């Protein structure tokens, strides 16, 4: 019996989720075993994702019909060029989980490790499911798996303050989930179908109606909340700063991207159902530009390094949304590449910051003066990450921001191009401020002077990721070439 590759796609979702169910069982004897088991599960998932990406390049998109029921009658999982985002996603988890092994000691009590690792796996499974599914209701459920595990992960280490940050996140997140459900209900009432391409086709066949536009709009608002787009970002800084660092890396680098993936899905839906969203594109551009500047501006005033990184996420989401809204091919491709690049850079930065905080017990720039002398390797990684996020040439951030800017200028939207440059300037200021504190000031706290480099299970992933920031930057063209064929399908929505 030959097994079709396409039918292994559901396992990308099932492996981490079933693994999560097994984690408490594995952890019964020894809490450490949970970490190892989780690592193995993420490794297998990542291997499968990479294998499927290779198949994708060789033979085109893979489609799995769960249960063997074809498209509108069953749930369809699509592994296409956008869905291939799951491969880097899984790889980041492979790097974050070993980091967490030692990080958890001293931050999270032992009896809650199993829950922590289970939540990480649930998060991974949900993220993959969200990226792959072509079914509206399935999308909602995968989103709920991600959200629920994220709320808990925010609160897992702290006491009351973390719970309050998590609850704020939960309330806004639930409203956004509710909007998604409402939109699904509306689309179902209009078309009688839940399959995305089928819904689009049936919407295109029917006469245009305000209800369909309302559905798409509420989907867009809901995903804007999940992506923390500027006026809806209020939940993000607290939640991301207060979570344990491996969790911050996952939340800031990967979980906010479900909002972006969702927005891309809305654009696909709009493009193929013929609902013109010209106003939508304009709005995305304006909000993106404002987010770039405001996020970077607010980050300047933060003394807490994790809070600073959290605001930088708001700014970077602005870049991606601006790129999507511009609608020029280069800009959209740049935005999609920036989804991966920002994930890479932000995971690097948060893990490096986590190492610094873990080794010194301090988290503000004032306290951390001179830490570059005692933790040279970690701070070098942090520096590389900072250079990358500013967007200086040999690094990953450069390529994507360059193409977004190129798209802005080629579309004749010069003002947005300048907003982009302006934002980069602010970013430059706050990272210079950070580097200045790290390298050019003398330590004021003895914790900094006494700090030693973290153990290899933490240092390894950080150094690997920092190197990846440069390597991806040097070979940057391949991501763009990979994503370009998918861009064409998205354009009609915005270009009108």
């Amino acid at each position, binding site marked *: *019996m030959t*097994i*079709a590759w396409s*039918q292994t796609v*559901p396992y990308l979702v*099932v492996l981490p*989720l*079933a693994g*999560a*169910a*097994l984690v*408490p*069982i594995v952890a*019964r004897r020894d809490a450490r075993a949970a970490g190892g088991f989780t690592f193995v599960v993420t490794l297998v998932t990542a291997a499968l994702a990479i294998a499927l990406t290779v198949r994708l390049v060789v033979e085109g998109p893979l489609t*799995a*019909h*769960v*249960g*063997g*029921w074809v498209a*509108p*009658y*069953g*749930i369809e999982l699509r592994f296409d060029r956008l869905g291939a985002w799951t491969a880097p996603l899984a790889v980041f988890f492979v790097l974050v989980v070993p980091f967490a092994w030692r990080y958890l000691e001293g931050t999270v*009590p032992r009896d*809650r490790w199993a*829950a*922590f690792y*289970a*939540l990480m796996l*649930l998060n991974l499974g949900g993220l993959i*499911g969200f990226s792959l599914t072509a*079914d509206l*209701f*399935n999308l909602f*459920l*995968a989103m*709920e*798996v991600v959200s*629920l*595990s994220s709320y*808990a992960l925010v*609160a*897992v280490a702290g*006491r009351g303050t973390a*719970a309050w940050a998590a609850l704020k996140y939960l309330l806004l997140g639930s409203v956004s989930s509710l909007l998604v459900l409402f939109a699904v209900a*509306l689309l*179902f*009432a*209009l*078309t*009688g*179908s*839940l399959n995305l391409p089928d819904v689009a086709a*049936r919407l295109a066949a*029917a006469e245009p109606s*305000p*209800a369909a*536009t*309302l559905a798409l709009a509420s989907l867009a608002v809901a995903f804007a909340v999940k992506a923390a787009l500027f006026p809806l970002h209020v939940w993000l800084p607290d939640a991301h700063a207060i979570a344990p660092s491996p969790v911050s890396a996952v939340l800031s680098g990967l979980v906010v991207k479900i909002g972006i993936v969702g927005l891309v899905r809305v654009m696909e839906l709009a493009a193929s159902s013929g609902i013109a969203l010209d106003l939508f594109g304009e709005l995305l551009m304006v909000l993106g530009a404002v987010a770039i500047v405001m996020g970077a501006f607010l980050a300047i005033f933060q003394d807490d390094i994790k809070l600073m990184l959290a605001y930088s996420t708001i700014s970077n989401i602005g870049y991606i949304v601006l790129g999507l809204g511009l609608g020029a091919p280069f800009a959209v491709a740049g935005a999609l590449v920036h989804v991966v690049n920002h994930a890479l850079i932000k995971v690097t930065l948060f893990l490096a910051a986590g190492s610094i905080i873990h080794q010194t017990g301090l988290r503000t720039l004032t306290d951390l003066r001179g830490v570059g002398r005692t933790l040279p390797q970690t701070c070098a990684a942090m520096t590389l990450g900072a250079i990358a996020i500013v967007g200086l040439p040999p690094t990953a951030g450069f390529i994507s921001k360059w193409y977004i800017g190129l798209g802005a200028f080629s579309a004749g939207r010069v003002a947005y191009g300048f907003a982009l440059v302006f934002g980069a300037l602010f970013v430059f200021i706050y990272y210079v401020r950070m580097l200045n504190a790290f390298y050019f000031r003398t330590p004021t706290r003895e914790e900094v002077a006494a700090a030693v480099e973290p153990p290899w299970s933490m240092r390894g992933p950080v150094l690997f990721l920092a190197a990846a920031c440069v390597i991806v930057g040097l070979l940057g063209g391949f991501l763009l070439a990979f994503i370009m064929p998918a861009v064409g399908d998205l354009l009609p929505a915005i270009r009108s």
Partner: protein
Amino acid sequence: MRWLGLALVVVAAATLMLGVADLPPHGAHDAPVHTHVGARYLERGVAETGMRNLVTAVLLVYRGFDTFLEVVVIFSALVAVVALPRGRAARSRDGDDQPPAALLTREGPAQERISVSPVVAFVVQLLGPFIAVFALASLYRGHVSPGGGFQSAAIFGALFIALALVQGRERAARLVPRGARVWLQALGPLSFALIGGVGWVLTGAFLGYPAEAAAYALREAMVVAVEIGIAVGGAVILAQLFMAMEG
């Protein structure tokens, strides 16, 4: 800030009205909802799945993957609640040591320890077996009448809560042995993954059920395994949620 909230409500109401006004009126049998996917399920569902209750058929067979994610969601709720620090310990640490009774009753400090009314205890114990039988029936007859795995889980969960209320949590907790809990709580996702894998081997598609007439018994067994997984897993999760929240 106050008027902003109210304005939000008004704007939401207006937008919703605008969108909803455009929908086809409900209840018409020729609306698009009733002529597309749902119509096919109604027409061929019984033949294709062998279930007379088509809601169960949709949940378990046509859209089984959704149900898989559903059990994962409730499992993650349990993990999330367990992952949080224990609240009661934190309270005493913060010096908030007032007896809760004094906080709670307006009428003044309540009595130290009030036992359950014997009437209530008797009635709950009287109804207990009925509830249990009813939950089992709901599971067993889920494919021909309303009910099914999750409803049964919820009824079992409610029964557990009632017993814990009148008999004390220690005695109720014995219904779910500590050693078995980690296995039972994971039963939902695991049974789906397992049966899904079996379906993958048999039919080539994850969560597929063999359609041949000869494989009828096998298909039944697979469905029953999933149902039991949902019911037992769900009930144990709800019971544990109750115990975790009770502190």
